[in-house]
């Protein structure tokens, strides 16, 4: 994996905590110049389209922090589905995290995009998503594999052009279910995600981060009106 891994697994499930880490603090002008990590207990994700080259998916282990009744925190092993793209494009994006702070409900919402369903305006490299429930229209192209073990899935490449071994951090001894495709396109995507990580250079036009009162949601994503280009 290129770049620093900012504790994706260890921070899963931190109670009522959203981390939007703008690595280069590039919020200015609505463009992120570098990387983004979004972590939370769970976040609602909605996008009209997610398209990528060198797609992989695997059931993986993760560690969740769970707060006990007595206030102590214990670590619990859970399973998630992790999806990764070496190179990705997004058509609009909305992420909403519900927070309860001082007894009041808030929603922290990140939105981005150009508002044009015909364009796939967000370019990103090395995208990873962790979740337990994702819905949408899925198309896979090129060489498509179901039943490949998670540790054998490939997404990103090394500088010498070879594939990085086990890019999704699947536990090799478990030989859990995976899928792999040359190209993948998800449209009208909604889901509950535990983490989203974009390691490579990343631009998100129209980026807005808002704190809203109450529990608000992302609007249902409309279908794209043009293919990814």
């Amino acid at each position, binding site marked *: 994996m290129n770049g620093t891994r900012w504790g994706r697994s260890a921070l899963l499930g931190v109670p009522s905590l959203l981390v939007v880490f703008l690595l280069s603090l590039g919020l200015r002008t609505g463009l992120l110049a570098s990387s983004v990590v979004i972590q939370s207990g769970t976040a609602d994700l909605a996008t009209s389209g997610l398209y990528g080259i060198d797609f992989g998916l695997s059931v993986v282990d993760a560690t969740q922090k769970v707060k006990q009744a007595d206030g102590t925190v214990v670590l619990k092993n859970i399973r998630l589905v992790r999806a990764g793209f070496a190179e990705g494009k997004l058509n609009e994006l909305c992420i909403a995290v519900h927070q309860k702070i001082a007894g009041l409900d808030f929603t922290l919402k990140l939105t981005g995009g150009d508002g044009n369903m015909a364009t796939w305006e967000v370019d990103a490299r090395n995208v990873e998503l962790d979740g337990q429930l994702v819905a949408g229209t899925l198309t896979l192209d090129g060489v498509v594999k179901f039943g490949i073990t998670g540790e054998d899935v490939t997404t990103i490449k090394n500088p010498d052009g070879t594939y990085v071994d086990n890019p999704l951090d699947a536990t090799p001894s478990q030989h859990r279910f995976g899928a792999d495709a040359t190209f993948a396109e998800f449209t009208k995507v909604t889901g509950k995600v535990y983490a989203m990580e974009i390691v490579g250079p990343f631009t998100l036009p129209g980026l807005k981060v808002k704190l809203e009162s109450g529990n608000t949601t992302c609007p249902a994503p409309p279908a794209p009106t043009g*293919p990814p280009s």
Partner: protein
Amino acid sequence: MIARLAAAAAVLAALVTTAVFPDISVSAAGAASGCVKDTKIGFCVVPTAYKVEFGRDSIGGYQWHAYSFVDLGTTTITVADGTTRSVNHYRFSRLVVDQNALIQQTRSDYQMRIGAPGPIELGGANNAGTSMWTDVWASGLEFRWGLCLFTWSWVPDDLSLNISGCWLRLDAYAITAYNPQPQPGQRDNPVYLPGATLSLLGGT
């Protein structure tokens, strides 16, 4: 207003804390995969079979159609832990499922489901007019056809059938779908699952 400011401050504090202290306990990607690849299939195959289901008994009527469905014979495959399985190698061309497609792996530590209400496509013809196909290595084939009156568990070896069925089930180890001329951004995909849901149950 004070509560709102406090909430914003808490969030900002979280941002700063995490930015300053990146976690180093996460194992780096690149750990050796250490699995055994099957030489015929070309990748490491899960040792636990997953259920594949097209159509549903309760729906009735023909629900899946294959321009070509052929059993390429019984074969032995090596799965990721180095053990072997005796399976049949099936090949579908232009497979369309009108209702209900399900891929489901159930293990003691989770259940993974990819479901779609249909219609879905596996294989077809791409923009260049070239046929695409789907290979399945599986055991436990069962399908119902013939006015939904007969349940069959085999098809003749090496005989391509243009067939419609009511439902079909099998226990798969590996599925591959192949487009010989893929074009980025095109939608002539060998796997098309509109309205799909991917879920992981029992993992927590």
